């Protein structure tokens, strides 16, 4: 406990510098704005805002990106409540009761409780993060190549099985990610692989370029079909953005249940805010005495998932900071940006750069308070931003995406890569191939292969090393369990009557 308080103190020293407080504010505000725009989520937010972290020290960069991340989580539900259009998938559940509340003239209450629940979720998530990170990092320090390989296999399997859609398509996505990761000079043997004679590919593919393509430019392509949508928002009808005492009392239980649930879901690789919010909604619906009110404007149906969503973003930082494995698409983009700044998150980060790891954790305390202050009094002006048409927002996102690509390596070849990645992303979406397993495999590809080969070298070519080490075996068992669980789930879904679109997947 004493060590934790000491580390937190160190983190607060970093987080409370004027420069970092300013970036927490800027990141949180920009994240809130991007998160609330329909179709754009936290991953897009972090991807297009990567350029603002160039030139920063790694601690400030990670603090800024985290602020964008949980800022987007705060903002995600604004559009759900006001226009019944979620900012991203994790804000879908907020439509269920948030929009009916707004329809009943309680938009102010809905916006207020969504901000308060996000704050509670963020704070509880942060406290859990404080207690989780150190032991996990300490354990991870003992991992050898076999454990690392099995852990990454589990992370990838979990991402595949928890992603939406077919498991086979998830494996294809993972394979594509690995294929991209193996392009370039092999670090262990020096062999040049899959470059097709293109010199620019010898150093491999910069995965940040691919991620900007997938999360920024592809998102713009996806929105090309909905550019002329106009949202009818009457800001005057929102009323006072505050929540009454009876409504607040009803929300306490859901917030306290949703937060730890969201955090735990966030820790699992690949299980993002979408699963956390749906689970929290299901829990609230099952514990209430009036389930019939859900879907018609029950404040509990908004408070629980909102808290779960923000706690989930804290949970996603556990595998990122302690194991170097991103727990969500957004965390993957953050990992890429950090590696560009020369920092590799993982257990060593806590030993070599405790100021970065604990600075980020402590900054969440500041960030959550700031975001509550932004999202309560500024709720009405923020909601007015939803009136800005997509046809003006999309060129700006494209501009940020391409500009960010240039800053990575100052190479014109990257513009070709980012364009191709965006096109590939759009086509994969059309084929219902999930993007997260591909991104994770691309990031972890080099490390996975290295661990695999090192393990085999240690074991003189015998694969038994993967099941002879107890921790490695445990990860393999977990990977198998997640596969069996997903197969069972798919079997059940297949027995249910399906729509033609679902059948097509």
């Amino acid at each position, binding site marked *: 406990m004493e060590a934790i308080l000491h580390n937190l103190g160190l983190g607060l020293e970093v987080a409370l510098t004027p420069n970092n407080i300013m970036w927490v504010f800027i990141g949180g505000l920009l994240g809130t704005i991007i998160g609330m725009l329909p179709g754009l989520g936290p991953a897009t937010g972090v991807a297009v805002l990567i350029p603002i972290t160039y030139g920063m020290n790694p601690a400030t960069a990670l603090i800024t990106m985290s602020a964008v991340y949980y800022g987007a989580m705060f903002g995600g539900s604004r559009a759900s409540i006001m226009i019944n259009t979620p900012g991203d998938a994790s804000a879908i559940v907020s439509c269920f009761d948030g929009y009916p509340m707004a329809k009943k003239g309680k938009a102010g209450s809905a916006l207020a409780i969504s901000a308060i629940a996000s704050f509670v979720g963020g704070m509880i998530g942060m406290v859990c993060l404080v207690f989780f990170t150190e032991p996990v990092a300490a354990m991870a320090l003992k991992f050898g190549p076999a454990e690392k390989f099995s852990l990454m296999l589990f992370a990838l399997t979990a991402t595949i099985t928890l992603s939406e859609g077919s498991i*086979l398509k998830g494996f*294809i996505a993972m394979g594509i990610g690995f294929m991209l990761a193996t392009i370039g000079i092999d670090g262990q043997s020096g*062999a040049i692989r*899959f470059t097709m004679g293109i010199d620019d590919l010898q150093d491999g593919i910069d995965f940040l370029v691919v991620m900007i393509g997938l999360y920024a430019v592809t998102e713009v392509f996806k929105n090309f079909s909905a550019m002329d949508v106009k949202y009818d928002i009457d800001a005057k009808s929102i009323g006072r953005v505050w929540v009454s005492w009876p409504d607040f009392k009803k929300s306490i239980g859901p917030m306290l249940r949703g937060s730890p649930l969201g955090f735990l879901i966030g820790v699992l690789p690949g299980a993002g805010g979408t699963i956390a919010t749906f689970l929290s909604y299901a829990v609230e619906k099952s514990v209430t005495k009036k389930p019939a009110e859900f879907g018609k404007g029950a404040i509990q149906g908004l408070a629980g998932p909102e808290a779960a969503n923000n706690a989930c973003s804290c949970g996603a930082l556990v595998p990122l900071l302690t194991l170097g494995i991103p727990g969500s698409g957004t965390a993957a983009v953050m990992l890429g940006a950090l590696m560009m700044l020369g920092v590799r998150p993982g257990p060593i980060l806590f030993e070599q750069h405790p100021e970065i790891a604990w600075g980020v954790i402590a900054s969440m305390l500041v960030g959550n308070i700031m975001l509550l202050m932004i999202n309560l009094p500024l709720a009405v002006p923020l909601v007015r931003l939803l009136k800005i048409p997509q046809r003006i927002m999309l060129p700006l996102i494209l501009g940020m995406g*391409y500009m960010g690509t240039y800053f990575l390596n100052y190479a014109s070849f990257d513009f070709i890569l980012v364009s191709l990645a965006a096109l590939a992303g759009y086509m994969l979406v059309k084929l219902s191939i999930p993007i997260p397993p591909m991104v994770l495999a691309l990031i972890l590809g080099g490390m996975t292969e290295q661990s695999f080969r090192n393990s085999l070298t240690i074991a003189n070519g015998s694969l038994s090393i993967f099941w002879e080490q107890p921790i490695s075996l445990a990860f393999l068992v977990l990977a198998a369990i997640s596969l069996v669980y997903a197969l069972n789930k798919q079997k059940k879904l297949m027995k249910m009557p399906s729509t033609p679109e679902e059948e*097509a997947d």
Partner: protein
Amino acid sequence: MTKNSTTGWFAVVLGAFYLFGTTLVPIFDAGDQTGPRAFPYLVSAVVILSGLGLLVKDWRSAKRVPFSWGFSTDRAIWLKILATMVAGIVYGLVLDSLGYLIATFLFMVAVSELINVGRHAQNLVIAVAFSLVTFISFALILKLSLPRGLLGGILPF
């Protein structure tokens, strides 16, 4: 073809190409004993088997909904995507020679005209504002190196 069969064939062909590419990877005596081909072989096996699995699943499926890329029905969208890609690639090619301000202005005009069709004045304002704000933010405030190109001798800062 259904969505599953399209994906299945795509995976099989991609996996086969990758497998062929793996056989061309040179093997050196130095380095680890597993070599640079083992992992790619595994990857191609996973992709090909998953593709075949999808094809079998599709073949056994009772309801088969035809899949279309929408090249004719969503022609305007595909053309916009293609034009955006071309604009992005050209932007990268001329950035150093024209300089950040001019190249970014031209890129923003191009993509805004593609997306915000017909609103020329609005697009010009967006393009000018974006190039100036980002240049000031990144080159002057964050001190990042940006090419000045044709305006190199004219810019007062």
